[in-house]
């Protein structure tokens, strides 16, 4: 019995908890991508770097607060800096819309042109981030590190395997739930939110109904910037901040959005957890896990790892390809085929 409990604890510690946290971060990122896709109808390649930009602002403000001696006690100071990061990132994104995308909207350009433009914006954003904060790792987490430490868990339960939950992980999940609830409330209950859904559904009819497209687009960008900043900050607190990593997050984020159905917010969340759980479960080495639940002589050498962590991006990619092969509209029906 304890064997099984130990196995469960081990599994929770190395798969369940990290996957839930990672899935929450991906979900927030994928929501931003899917919102922009639903309203502006293009895949925003700059989203990863928008996340990096927002997070960079949060880090800078955090450092400033730290130097002033401000803190949130056990919680990371970054939370206090988050609103500033969101505001700055929203301003940046709105500026890029005004300077870049607005022109193509007026011209009713092909989605692929937007996509290329977003690549240009990505370049510039990436350059700005590296210029300001540099290409290296930045650590900005402070406050308490753990909600539950593995050692405490062990003494509490008497098991030999512990579960540790980092503050950043708990924070990620709680924040994700709050943000998603607020977003869905906004989209389904407020006038502006409904007008966004209407615009995404049928642009011409939305215009005929007197919905102001400029306002819809602006609100979309602000939401995307807020989601990107929150997702990036949570990811940075949980792991670390490095501009290039955020660019690389683009693949799992897009995979989440497509797996769930591009343009569908609910799908983006579901897709994010599918991707996060697959990625972590497939790259986890089950050797010790198997040691608990299988008879001794069954467990041979090898790590019992399906795929090395070096290939974690391959997991999202393969899931993406499978979905495109068998169900191109995604798990939930999206707008894009």
């Amino acid at each position: 019995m304890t064997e099984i409990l130990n196995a469960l604890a081990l599994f929770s510690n190395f798969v369940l908890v990290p996957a839930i946290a990672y899935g929450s971060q991906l979900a927030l990122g994928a929501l931003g991508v899917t919102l922009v896709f639903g309203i502006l109808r293009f895949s925003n390649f700059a989203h990863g770097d928008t996340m990096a930009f927002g997070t960079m602002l949060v880090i800078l403000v955090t450092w400033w607060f730290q130097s002033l001696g401000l803190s949130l006690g056990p919680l990371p100071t970054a939370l206090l800096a988050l609103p500033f990061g969101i505001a700055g990132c929203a301003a940046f994104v709105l500026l890029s819309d005004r300077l870049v995308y607005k022109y193509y909207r007026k011209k009713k350009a092909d989605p692929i042109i937007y996509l290329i433009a977003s690549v240009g914006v990505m370049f510039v954003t990436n350059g700005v981030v590296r210029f300001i904060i540099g290409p290296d790792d930045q650590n900005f987490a402070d406050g308490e590190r753990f909600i539950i430490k593995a050692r405490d868990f062990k003494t509490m339960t008497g098991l030999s395997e512990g579960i540790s939950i980092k503050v950043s992980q708990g924070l990620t999940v709680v924040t994700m739930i709050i943000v998603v609830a607020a977003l869905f409330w906004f989209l389904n209950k407020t006038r502006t939110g409904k007008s966004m859904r209407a615009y995404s559904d049928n642009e011409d009819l939305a215009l005929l109904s007197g919905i102001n497209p400029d306002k819809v687009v602006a609100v979309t960008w602000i939401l995307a910037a807020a989601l990107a900043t929150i997702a990036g900050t949570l990811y940075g607190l949980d792991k670390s901040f490095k501009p290039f990593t955020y660019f690389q997050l683009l693949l799992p984020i897009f995979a989440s959005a497509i797996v769930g159905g591009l343009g569908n917010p609910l799908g983006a969340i579901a897709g994010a957890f599918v991707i996060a759980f697959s990625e972590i479960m497939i790259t986890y080495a089950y050797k010790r896990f198997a040691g608990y639940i299988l008879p001794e002589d069954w467990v041979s050498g090898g790590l019992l790892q399906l795929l090395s962590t070096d290939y974690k991006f391959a997991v999202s990619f393969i899931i993406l390809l499978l979905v495109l092969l068998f169900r191109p509209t995604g798990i939930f029906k999206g707008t894009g085929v």
Partner: protein
Amino acid sequence: MISGAKNVFLFAIMAALVVFVGQYQSWNLSLSILNLCLISAIMSLGVNIQWGYAGLFNVGIMGFAAMGGLAAMLISVSPVPEAWAAGGVGVIIGLFILIATVLAAMFSYRKMAKSPMRTFLIVLISVIGYFILRSVVDPATGAIEKVNPASTGYLGGLGLPIILAWPVGGLFAGAVAWVVGKITLGLRTDYLAIATLGISEIIVAVLKHEDWLTRGVKNVTGLPRPVPYEIELQKSEWFLSLSQRFNADPVTFSSIFVKLCYAGLFTVVLLIVLWLSEKALRSPWGRMMRAIRDNEVSANAMGKDIKARHLQVFVLGSIVVGIAGAMLTTLDGQLTPSTYQPLRFTFLIWVMVIVGGSGNNWGAVLGGFVIWFFWIEAEPLGLWFMDVITSGMAEDSSLKAHLIESAAHMRLMTMGLILLLTLRFSPRGLIPEKVGRH
């Protein structure tokens, strides 16, 4: 073939810039830039075939170039007999298992009607195949990597002349493109973009981590060259007399001579690819491609199989990129997986194509030259620019240090700006596509 004095003028300016660098910086640098310009031009020709002819957005250029690099290494280095003895059989059996698995999956895909049962069966076949593959290959690769890891630890290659790798690199890249295209073409164009982004990350990850194949981040250095070595030149009679004739230092001249040899080879390839691309563009096939690009709906109505045409053009373009990738690794003389960076390989090439003129082969070539030239020269220019800006600041100012240190990142920003500005104000590029002729 180039119409208009403006285009000749643009190429002349480019040539003058190369000469200028030769005169005022050094001929060695100028020729290094020229060689990479030639390779970049071939790559952007490949991308132009996909984007300019057919409107396909490939965000995985890096991966296709890396396939070419892999080919260069596999063809040219000598095999490592000890490694083959240690695990060669296992790897070959593994290869057969892989092929058998894929064939079995494809067989059930073809023979069964679309149903959840079929999906399940295909997944099951893949999973079982994967486990068998791992059980055979893992011990073999482990053994291979243990063979003298400091200098080999991999299977090596075929030991053939590296020139052969150029077409082979094209084939490698084309094969990958075929698989990706088969799955994603016919869906939204965004999906192709995202899928190519993914496959290129994976290819580079494989190159970095499969030590038994590529030595991973330990790199494979000293690939044999298709041109003479400087040391040998410096020893040979004819070369010494030649350098005397030019009144040049034999050491400098030998490295210039080697670069000239490369430039000659690359120019030949560039001209062949350019000639073929132009020929294809003007053929009925090229006209059909552009007709499809400009109006998919009506082309579809005319009974053109758009997906098959797109697949064709996607594979062709990737082959060209693969060839260029192999040439690049040949020039470097080493396979260094960690140098494959998406910003350098994928997005820079895009800037070349857009700036040069999408749809126009000459434009793509010019774009390759111009952008590579400025990519290299932006570094000294940026540094100089920062020096000017910060000249008023105190010597020990931390802002000054930060600005000068960050000058390198200005390149990214500049490239992004160039892309955005071209797209906005001159979307047809330096040498626009000729319209109204199809």
